[in-house]
C-alpha cells in the first residue's frame, strides 16, 4: 500500500515537471470528456452564482439584479439585529450536528453488518427494503411520520397506551423535535447511504480475510482490522462532504434538509424546529423579501464553506485523505 502510494506521488512529480502544453496534450482526451461537465458547471452553477449579489442590493425583480441599487451589508445587519438570529443559528447548528453525529455512522454500521451476512438472498432483500424509503417522496414520508406519531390514532401512541403509558403529544413538545428528525432521517437514508460502503467493502481482497483467520482473528477483529481500514478513505471523504452541509440543518447522504423541517414543524415547537432555511423560506417566498432572505442564506453558506475548508485542512494534516 505504501509502495503504491509512493509510486503515485512519483508519477505526479513527473507530470508536474512538464510544461502546461505537454500536460494539456497528454490529457486532452480526458479534458474532452470533462468538457460537457465544465459547460454544465459554468451555465448552471457559476453563472447563477452571480445571483447572490442581490443580497447586497435592494433587489427589484423587474429591474433585474444588475440594475437594482447597492445597499452594502444592510440585510446582513438586519438579520443579526433580529431577535430570531441567535435561536435560528443555534437550531440550525444543533440539528445539523445531531444528524451528523447519529445519522452519519448509521449506514457504516449497517454496511459492516450486512457484509457479514452470508445468505445472498437475505442480504439482497434487506438491502432493497432499507433503500426503499429513500425513493418515497419527502411529503409522503413526513405525512407517514406525522400519522405514526399522532396523539389521536397514531400507531406509536397506541403502542405506548398498550404498554400502559400515557399518550405523548410528540409534535407539540419542542424537546422531541430533534430526535424525531434524526430518527426519521436515519430510517430514510440508511440503505441509500450504505450503498457506497457496501461497494467499498466488496473490493476488499479475500486473501486478507483468509490470512486473518489463520492468525486466529474472530469476526469482530476482522471487521476492526480489515473492513474498517479499507473503507476509511471513503468514510473520510463522505464525512468531509457532509461536514460541509452541517450548517444547513440536518442533511446527510443527500437526504433530509429544509423541506423535512417545513413539513414537520408547527408554531408550538418553533423553539427547536425553526432553522435558517425555514426562516429564509418564510421571508423569501411567503413575504417576498428576496434580498433579505438571500443575505441570510449566503451567511449560512459562508459558514458551511468555512467548515468544509477547515475540516479538509485538518483531515489532510492528520489522515492523508482530503477532498482536494
Amino acid at each position, binding site marked *: 500500500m505504501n509502495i503504491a502510494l509512493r509510486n503515485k506521488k512519483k508519477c505526479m512529480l513527473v507530470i508536474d515537471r512538464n510544461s502546461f502544453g505537454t500536460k494539456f496534450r497528454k490529457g486532452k482526451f480526458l479534458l474532452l470528456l470533462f468538457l*460537457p461537465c465544465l459547460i454544465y458547471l459554468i451555465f448552471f452553477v457559476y453563472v447563477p452564482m452571480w445571483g447572490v449579489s442581490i443580497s447586497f442590493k435592494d433587489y427589484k425583480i*423587474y429591474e433585474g439584479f444588475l440594475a437594482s441599487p447597492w445597499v452594502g451589508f444592510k440585510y446582513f445587519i*438586519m438579520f443579526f439585529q433580529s431577535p430570531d438570529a441567535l435561536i435560528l443559528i443555534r437550531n440550525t447548528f444543533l440539528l445539523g450536528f445531531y444528524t451528523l453525529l447519529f445519522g452519519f455512522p448509521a449506514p457504516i454500521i449497517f454496511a459492516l453488518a450486512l457484509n457479514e451476512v452470508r445468505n445472498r438472498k437475505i442480504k439482497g432483500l434487506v438491502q432493497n427494503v432499507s433503500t426503499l424509503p429513500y425513493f418515497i417522496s419527502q411529503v409522503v414520508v413526513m405525512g407517514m411520520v406525522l400519522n405514526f406519531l399522532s396523539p*389521536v390514532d397514531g400507531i406509536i401512541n397506541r403502542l405506548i397506551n398498550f404498554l400502559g403509558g400515557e399518550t405523548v403529544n410528540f409534535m*407539540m413538545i419542542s424537546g422531541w423535535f430533534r430526535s424525531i428528525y434524526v430518527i426519521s432521517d436515519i430510517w430514510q437514508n440508511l440503505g441509500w447511504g450504505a450503498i457506497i460502503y457496501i461497494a467499498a467493502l466488496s473490493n476488499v481482497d479475500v486473501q486478507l480475510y483468509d490470512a486473518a483467520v489463520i492468525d486466529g482473528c474472530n469476526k469482530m477483529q476482522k471487521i476492526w482490522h480489515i473492513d474498517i481500514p479499507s473503507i476509511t478513505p471513503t468514510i473520510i471523504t463522505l464525512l468531509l462532504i457532509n461536514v460541509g452541509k452541517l450548517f444547513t440543518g440536518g442533511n446527510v447522504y443527500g437526504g433530509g434538509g429544509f423541506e423535512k423541517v417545513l413539513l414537520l414543524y*408547527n408554531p408550538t415547537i*418553533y423553539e427547536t424546529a425553526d432553522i435558517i432555511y425555514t426562516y429564509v423560506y*418564510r421571508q423569501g417566498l411567503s413575504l417576498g423579501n428576496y434580498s433579505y432572505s438571500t443575505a441570510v442564506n449566503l451567511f449560512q453558506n459562508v459558514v458551511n464553506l468555512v467548515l468544509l475548508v477547515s475540516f479538509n485542512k485538518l483531515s489532510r494534516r492528520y489522515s492523508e485523505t482530503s477532498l482536494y
Partner: protein
Amino acid sequence: MKKLVALILAVMMVLVLFSGCATKSADKGGESTAATTAKATETTAAPEAPKTVSIMVGSGPSWPFQEDWYILKKIKEKTGITLNVNAVTDPNFNDKVSITLASGDVPDLIYLDAPTAQKFGQQGALVNIFDIEKDMPNYLKWKNADKNNILPFLTSDGKLYNFSANEIGETNRMGWLYRKDVFDANKLQVPTNDEELYNVLKQLKQIYPDTYPLTFRGGVSRIPLIASSWGAGNNGLSALYGPTKPPYFYDASSDSWKYSPIEQGYKNLLTYLNKLYKEKLIAPDIISLDTKTWQDRMSGNQIFITMDYIVRIDYFNVPLRKINPVFTLAYMPPFKGGELGSAKKTNTASNYAGNTITAKAKNMQNAIQLMDWMFSDEGKETVSWGAEGETYTMVDGKRKMTDMADVTELRKKTGISTLGMYTRFDFGVHINLFSPELAAAANEDPKYDQEAVIPGVFTAAEQEIVATKGAAIQKLTDEMVAKFVVGQRNLSEWDKYVQEVKALGLDDMLGIYKASHERLKNVK
C-alpha cells in the same frame, strides 16, 4: 495535425449538441411571439382580423385548464378577442410570474393577488390603471359608483394595478359549521354563547367518548378569526390573507390601531380553548392538524363542530350522503364569546386579487378593451351565467343551470369563475348550484359581518419593518398562542407575554398601520 483536426471537430460536435438544444427551445418561444405580434399588426391593418390577448393565470388541480372551455368561446363571441391562456399548474405561481416578468417575454394580462401586484407594479412591471382608465367607459362607471371598490387595492403612492375582482370573494366566507343530524338525534341546541357551547361539547363527548367534538384545521392561523367574536377586534383578515395580513385591527372607539393577540378578549379565548384542550373537547393535535387528517375525521364522525369555508358544507354533504343519507353539515351562527364578545364575526368575503395589465403588453389596446368589457353589465352577466339555452334554462322565471351538479363541475366544464375569467361577478350562479343547506348559509352568514377597516398598502421602508419586527412579533405570537392553548405556558404569564411582544417593536408596527391608514383616508 490530423489529431488536432479531430480534436477541434470533437469539440465542435459537443458544442453543437448543446447549442442545438438551445436554438430549438428559443425557436419555439419565438414562434409564438412572432405569431402574436403578427396577429396584433394585422388587427391594426384590418379590424375584422382576429384579435388576441394573452393571459397568465394559476390553474387548480380540480379544474384543469381546457382549450375548448365555453367561457373562452363566449368571450370571443362577445368581444372578438381570442384569449391565449397560459395556465400555470405550479403551486408557486408567483415565482413563475417573477421569472416571466424578468424574462421580458410577458403576457398581456396576469391574474395576481394584490400584494404581489403592488410589488411588481411599483417596480414598473404593470400598468397603473389610472393611466389607462380614460379609454374604459364601463370601468369608470363602475369605479365612480363606489370608492370602496378600489380602495383596498391602492398602493402607498396612490396607484392602482389590480382590476378588483372582489365579488367572487363571497366564496371565501368562513364560519362555524356543525353536524345538524347529530345535534338533532341527541336533541342538542345550537349554542349562542361560549357557556352553551361548552355544555354541548361536554354532552357530545359523553355520548361519543372517542371523539374530539370541536376541531378545526389551520392551527393558530384560525384563532384570530374566532377571536373576532370574543371582542378581540375585527382581525380575521389574517385568516384569509395569511402572513401578509397579521391580526392588527382598527379600534374606532379609541381611533387607534391595535394588535389583537394581546387584547383581553384574546386572552379570554385562549383561556377557554385551553380549558377545552385539557378536557379533550378539542383534538390534542389541533395546532398541527393538516387538511387531510381533518377531512378524514370530519367524514369519520369524529368532529361535530368546526370552523371553515362555508362552501365546505357541500364538499362533505354531497359525497357522504351516499354512505350515510342523514349526514348533514350545516351553518352555525357565531356565538358570543366571553364577557367582551358579541355574536358577530369578521367578514372574510373578499378576494384580494384580480387581473393586471403588464407594462410591456403586446396587445395593450385589446387587453384594455377586454377588461373594460368585463366591467360592463353584459360582461358581468356573461362571465357569471353564460347564456340562456347554453348554460342555463329558465324554469318558472328562475334560472336553472343545465347539466351541472356543483360549482366544481361548472368550473371544470365551462371555465366560468376560474382565475382571471372574471372581474365583476354575480355570485348568484354559485348559490344556484348550492344545496339548500349551503344556499341558506350563504344567505345567513352576511348578517353577522363586522365592518372591516382595511389598512393601506405599505411603503418600501414600512415593508422593511414588517419583514423584521413584524415577522418577529408574528412568530412569537404564533408560538405563544399555541403554547397557551396546549398549556405549555401558563396563562398567568399573560402580562409577561404582552411585554415580550411589545419589546419586539410592536409600537413601530402599530405606527405604520396608522400611517398607512391615514394615507388611505386622504385619497379623494
